[in-house]
């Protein structure tokens, strides 16, 4: 379960968030709240601002306008983690990659050893602990990235299309891991293009289009009876 000592960064509240880059508006006045324990999938066509919004929520991007708070505070908390579309792993062993993250979080010694072993076991990579991370397969690398995130015991985990470049089997393995992490109490916020995957994982859906938040609703409502014509069209595949 999430580390209670680091559980200070929820809910995440966005008000009027806008992002502008080189004169182009990527997000327009997004109002959004991420509450503890949810599994929120951010959906939308290409270029709708999903990944940008995810980076704002994780504190990697500072909005051009609007406010964001984590647990009521304006500074990004330490107890959140993110996994990117393409796993970014250091040129060292799988175990050392996790140790690096733990070291930065101040977790060392026997506690770090235990978390590394637990995290690698969680994603089925214990036999590859000593293998260099960058020579693992794409699916293994993404599982290792998840293990690294999970070892931090984050209260919120952000996933930016974590299965976009994986085959169906590896994608399902990643989904299972995400489901397991969520079941242990970690709040999940994830972007995906894969509607079937979204249906399997989502409790809540945030639908973006052209940088605007068009719809936010419980997953079953969104998929069965979308409230907006844009979302309905997206689900029908017209905007994919």
């Amino acid at each position, binding site marked *: 379960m999430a580390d209670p000592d680091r559980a200070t960064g929820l809910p995440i509240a966005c008000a009027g968030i806008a992002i502008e880059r080189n004169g182009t508006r990527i997000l327009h006045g997004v109002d959004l709240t991420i509450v503890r324990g949810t599994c929120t999938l951010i959906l939308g066509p290409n270029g709708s601002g999903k990944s940008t919004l995810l980076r704002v929520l*994780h504190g*990697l991007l500072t909005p051009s306008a609007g406010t964001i708070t984590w647990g009521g505070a304006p500074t990004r908390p330490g107890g959140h*983690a993110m996994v*990117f579309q393409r796993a970014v792993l*250091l*040129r060292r062993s799988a175990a050392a990659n996790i140790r*690096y993250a733990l070291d930065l979080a101040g977790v060392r010694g026997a506690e770090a050893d235990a978390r590394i072993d637990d995290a690698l076991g969680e994603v089925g990579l214990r036999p590859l602990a000593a293998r260099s991370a960058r*020579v693992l397969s794409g699916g293994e690398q993404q599982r290792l990235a998840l293990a690294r995130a999970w070892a931090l015991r984050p209260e919120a985990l952000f996933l930016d299309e974590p299965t976009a470049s994986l085959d169906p089997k590896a994608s399902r393995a990643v989904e299972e891991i995400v489901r397991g992490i969520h079941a242990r109490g970690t709040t999940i916020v994830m972007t995906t293009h894969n509607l079937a995957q979204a249906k399997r994982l989502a409790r809540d859906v945030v639908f973006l289009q052209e940088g605007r938040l068009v719809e936010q609703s419980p997953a079953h409502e969104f998929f069965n009876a979308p409230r907006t014509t844009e979302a309905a069209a997206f689900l029908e595949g017209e905007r994919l």
Partner: protein
Amino acid sequence: MNTFSDSLSLAAGLVTHFDPKLVEIVLLSLRVSLTATVLSACIGLPIGAAIAVGRFSGRQALTVVLNALMGLPPVVVGLVVYLLLSRAGPLGMFGILFTPTAMIVAQTILITPIIAALSRQIVADAWGEYREQLLSLGAPTRVAVLTLLWDTRFSLAIVLLAGFGRAIAEVGAVMIVGGNIDGVTRVMTTTIALETSKGDLPLALALGLVLIALVLIVNALAQYTRDWARVRYG
């Protein structure tokens, strides 16, 4: 038998019999260039990494200057170091002109921009790849820089080998600040220049052979390092 084959035969004899004079010159060359490379690494790697990761005004201009300094003419470096270290110069009190130390200083000035500029590019590429992940993990800038330097260590090792290759093959600067004094500051390149002008080709050729062998070894090492790292670490 013509002069070239005669000289080549004599040169091969000097190399295979480890001629003491030849060995002394080779060892001094290695000591000077290896020390200069280590010093340049200590100066150039942090500078390159700081420019790659840092965000400050004048960064682009600094990069341009650094890249331009890669082409520093060795004789100009030699002249400047000579003026600095000569008795009347601002650093004349150290009395190191015409010593191996002066040659190390000159070579360090010559190859530091090479190491800094090439390492800047390598670290900048890695920063582009790692930036978001390291920020996500909460890595402070100092830790991020050290991480990038460590993760690009094999590419940076090749940069250092390139710097060493430039230093050991350089003649103009060490000739000016070293003075090419027999038994004191005579290195391979300056000896080759001197012996050739005197018409004593065997020693010049023998040193030329050693120099070429060293350059080959350095390049083979760079190639091997690159290939090994790719297989081992991806």
